[in-house]
């Protein structure tokens, strides 16, 4: 490709190339090939398998502490709840890097990734989930406000398309 960029050009060749560059730019200006998602009116449905916010199920947990041991960011910690003998995991989202090792190592499926990824916090302390807070469903704030879910579709013309579901 593009072998001839090294050949000495002349005015005519240059003009042609300028014209080709401008024409290409114009073509894209006129046709609307856009990949952008208008969040928060639309929100991408990331589907199963996406490593998003982590859901912990207290009823399944056997307190083996493997999740806290494998966590490379020291985000997962075992907590002692008042009045309980067993320790339970809590997570600190200031530290979590969403590597998913904890989910992979949990032997009883007590930890699961959810596709929710768009949570924001006003205070740092809110990012710490002690076991009592950790055992709740995640809801995407955009979806709660009525954002329409879109699906990512690969497309030969546009690259990525976002189809409403």
């Amino acid at each position, binding site marked *: *490709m*593009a072998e*001839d*960029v*090294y050949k000495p*050009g002349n005015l005519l060749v*240059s003009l042609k*190339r*300028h014209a*080709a*560059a401008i*024409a*290409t*730019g114009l073509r*894209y200006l006129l046709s609307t090939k856009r*990949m952008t998602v208008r969040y928060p009116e639309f929100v991408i449905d990331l589907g199963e*398998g*996406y*490593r998003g916010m982590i859901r912990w199920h207290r009823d399944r947990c056997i307190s*083996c502490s*493997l999740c806290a*041991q*494998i966590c*490379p*960011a020291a985000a997962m910690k075992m907590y002692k709840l008042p009045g309980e003998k067993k320790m339970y995991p809590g997570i600190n989202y200031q530290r979590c*890097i*969403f*590597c*998913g*090792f904890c989910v*992979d*190592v949990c*032997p009883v*499926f007590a930890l699961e*990734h959810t596709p929710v990824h768009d949570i924001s916090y006003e205070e740092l302390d809110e990012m710490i989930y002690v076991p009592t807070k950790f055992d709740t469903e995640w809801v995407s704030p955009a979806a709660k406000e009525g954002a329409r879910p879109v699906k*990512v579709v*690969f*497309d*030969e*013309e*546009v*690259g*990525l398309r976002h189809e409403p579901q």
Partner: protein
Amino acid sequence: MTSPGSSELRGNPYFWYRLMGRDEEGYDVYELFIGPQHPASGHMRIIVRLDGDIIVDAEPDIGYVHRTMEKLAEGREYLKNIPLFERATIIDAANITWGYVRAVEQLLGLEAPPRAEYLRTLLAEINRIASHLYGFGIAGIMLNHSTMFMWAFGDREVWVQLAEDLTGARLTHSYIIPGGVRRNLPQDFKEKALKAIRYMEKRLQDYERIFVKNPVIIARYVDVGVIKAEEAKRLGIVGPNLRAAGVRYDARIAEEYGAYPELDFEIPTREEGDAMARLLVRIEEIKQSMSMIKQILDKIPDGPIFHEKYYRMLPPKLKEFVEQTGRLKLPGAFIRLKPEPGEAVARVEMGHGEVFYHIVSDGGIKPYRVRIVTPAFRNVVLYRYLTRGARFMDLPAIYGSIDYFPPEGDR
């Protein structure tokens, strides 16, 4: 270079010359500090000395994003270092961790099953394309070609999406682990990848029209920042920067790891060694990577994705889950991998060039020492050698064409 006025300079007979704005030989030089606040590709500083419009000397001053990764690695279990090293080159996470995992596998005496090697190669090539597009976009904006920047970054999204489908994360995949990979190929992956490839092939033609063959870019890139084969070898340059100088060296061939021995691909090289050659080599590599992805998806063998030694430890219920979902579960024993005492080295070809790992194990659960030589660190010297005698306006062109990534150089 020491900054003017530092204590060592006080005894220097040229100090007074410098104070008068003259260099050692008495020339008028102007010292210009570019950075360290993110001149373009990350935090670094280039100290440029100018004689009029001509660069007399340019000194890369790095270390602003140094995170003591090698030291941190000594305090973490082997598995936990994977997400750490990933953060050296976040845009090429699969390749940079693959080198580490290969070295750990040597220490553990493990080999990944063939299917896992193919999946690793698949993600590595997807990452290579994304990494080249990233560099391409940055090179574009450095020449003030913001269209190229937007396009390359937009098209990178397609490859990032593919990687997300495979691994569950956009950039920090932590996909390659000792003994295999963490996820199996999704059902519809091949179809998606082929669409992405066809899209990219079309786009590369548009890139050519709007950027590569654009007379403005030709004027800025051809014969700018020339390095020849001998000099490149002497300086220890790696990656596309080396191949653009005419040296056919690539760790994928030198080392024969992953699925590369079974794939049919070429190592693009050029003779010119200028900024344009470096750009063309990268574009050619994107095409080669796409051809490799097609071959991988055609030939990928069936079989396990994780080494039997650890897979065996999983209880039947977890095995069933892995079979059904294609998402690996890890046995508890995997947290504290304990290799034999010894040393291992491994190298891998990243988008930016060859990365080299040297691990020393004392038989404990944490490495005794990990040495990483990243391609960016080996290429940073180019700032000095490519810019001497160039015009100042060539500096952004040269900077962009090297594809230097500061967090990788600094570790």
